[in-house]
């Protein structure tokens, strides 16, 4: 049977939102080719308690591999465990999130399985029984529709793009044996230094507040942080290349062709003129708001809503209005 495997992602024992998206996408493809959806989750002991949700998003079977050492992502442990799962299933396709974990894992798994890989897909379709994958080139200046020879067809899916929809299935949890030998792992994490704040990564956030050169200096970022706080915990800070090059903000926040390509529900571009390589990285956002002093800035051409004005006056007011709405 042409079944589809969805590799779900957990952090600290809780499933990440993108896992629902990947399982839902797998459900739609499996329905089109007449197969089942199997979801697989790796984690530390107890993770099985947190995966029941995957049935609600369309998994017929939920494979859970629990082991000491799999609580946190480790490439060698995860690849070894997942190679067996994929080989054991004779799958039509394997989907996983194009998160930073997924993009690290997918190529290793593909090489081990000797199958080609399409990373960061933004759309999937089944045409004449074949899976057609749409993925960005040049950070979104163009899109390619590709097919992959052989099976399984391995594809990572961009977060925030695929609709998570409920499609209740039995979702019976089945424990799998995973061969885990931490003593054989060569790559070891010595320590993890958490960055300040609890904001999500810009590549996965549902709302992004991005600042550009119009912010005039790193000392003014507090007004963007305040807007981000007003919006809520799903909001991340972004930055243009100009401000990262100037050393105002870390590269991890950079949106664009030499940074991250993003697809949030809502994108605020504050003091960003809209260079072609920035636009490429954010133009698939669902709604774009531009705030810029220069009415001729190219960013207004891609924005759904624009305010011509001084960010230092507009942004604090915006934070205030959003707080009012939230407290409504």
């Amino acid at each position, binding site marked *: 049977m042409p079944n589809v495997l969805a590799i779900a992602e957990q952090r600290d024992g809780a499933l990440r939102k993108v896992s629902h998206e990947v399982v839902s996408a797998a459900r739609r493809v499996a329905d089109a080719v007449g197969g089942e959806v199997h979801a697989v989750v790796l984690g530390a002991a107890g993770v099985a308690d947190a995966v029941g949700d995957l049935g609600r998003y369309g998994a017929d079977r939920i494979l859970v591999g629990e082991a000491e050492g799999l609580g946190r992502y480790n490439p060698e442990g995860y690849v070894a465990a997942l190679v067996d799962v994929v080989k054991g299933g004779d799958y039509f396709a394997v989907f996983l999130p194009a998160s930073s974990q997924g993009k690290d894992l997918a*190529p290793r798994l593909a090489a081990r399985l000797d199958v080609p890989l399409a990373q960061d897909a933004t759309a999937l379709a089944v045409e004449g029984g074949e899976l057609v994958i749409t993925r960005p*080139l040049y*950070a979104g200046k163009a899109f390619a529709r590709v*097919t992959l020879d052989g099976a399984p067809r391995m594809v990572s899916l961009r977060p925030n793009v695929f609709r998570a929809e409920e499609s209740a299935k039995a979702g019976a949890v089945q424990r799998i044996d995973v061969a885990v030998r931490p003593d054989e792992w060569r790559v070891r994490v010595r320590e993890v*230094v958490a960055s300040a704040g609890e904001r999500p990564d810009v590549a996965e956030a549902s709302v992004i507040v991005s600042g550009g050169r119009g912010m005039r200096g790193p000392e003014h970022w507090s007004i963007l942080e305040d807007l981000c706080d007003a919006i809520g915990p799903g909001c991340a800070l972004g930055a243009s290349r100009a401000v990262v090059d100037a050393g105002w903000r870390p590269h991890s926040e950079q949106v664009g062709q030499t940074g991250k390509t993003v697809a949030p529900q809502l994108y605020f571009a504050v003091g960003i003129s809209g260079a072609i390589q920035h636009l490429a990285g954010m133009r698939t956002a669902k709604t*774009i708001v531009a705030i810029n002093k220069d009415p001729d800035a190219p960013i207004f051409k891609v*924005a759904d*809503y624009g305010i011509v004005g001084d960010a230092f006056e507009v942004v604090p007011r915006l934070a205030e*209005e959003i707080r009012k709405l939230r407290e409504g």
Partner: protein
Amino acid sequence: MKSIVCIKRVPDTETRIKISEDGKSIDPAGIKYVVSPYDEFAVEAALQLKESRGEGEVVVVTVGESAAGEQLRSALAMGADRAVLLKAQATQDGLATAKALAAELKDAGADLILFGMKAVDDDQQQVGPMVAELLGLPCVTVVGQFEVQDGKVVCHREVEGGTEVVEAPLPAVLTITKGKYEPRYASLKGIMAAKKKPLEEKDAQMAESRVRVQSLSYPAERPEGRIVGTGPDAVPELVRLLREEAKAL
């Protein structure tokens, strides 16, 4: 200490992309090609490692058409010692590219194999870790800084929400992101010297691509937006539109 840096010829990020008449490829006319920016970080990292140790060799390798020799010369001008061009048509099949590289690197005796964390054309972020798997080497991705000590490499890796300090034994494969390594400009002396440095060309052992491009397209045009107003007085109307029309708040 021998470092091999794998680089790629890509269109400059300021380039406007035009799709060819066949609808399946990019029209190369008028494109300015550069070394992919992340690969430049990797070249810089290898050069700094060699300089700090006072010994070693930096070799740059690419899979591509003859014209990719230009990008190898750029890396030689930055200070790499020699270059290898594995001639093949570029493909979107990262695994085919990885196999061609692995065949070349298998017996090359590298202590470190470096890649940019992604190429800014296909954005696949896959060839580096694939080469590591094919060669059975440990691999650390998205490294902003690393040090070599006692046969090990200690990497600072950018992950969601922080930095991981990760250690791996040599030889190892790393993919490099923007971090500590600001690429140097080639000096005039470097550019002159690069012309005399060895650049070996040979055919890549390239498998047939298993990624089939059906068509290319431009991103959907966004519907014409509107200017809501001027200055902070426009904010309440913006918030109303975001809530009621865009349903984004």
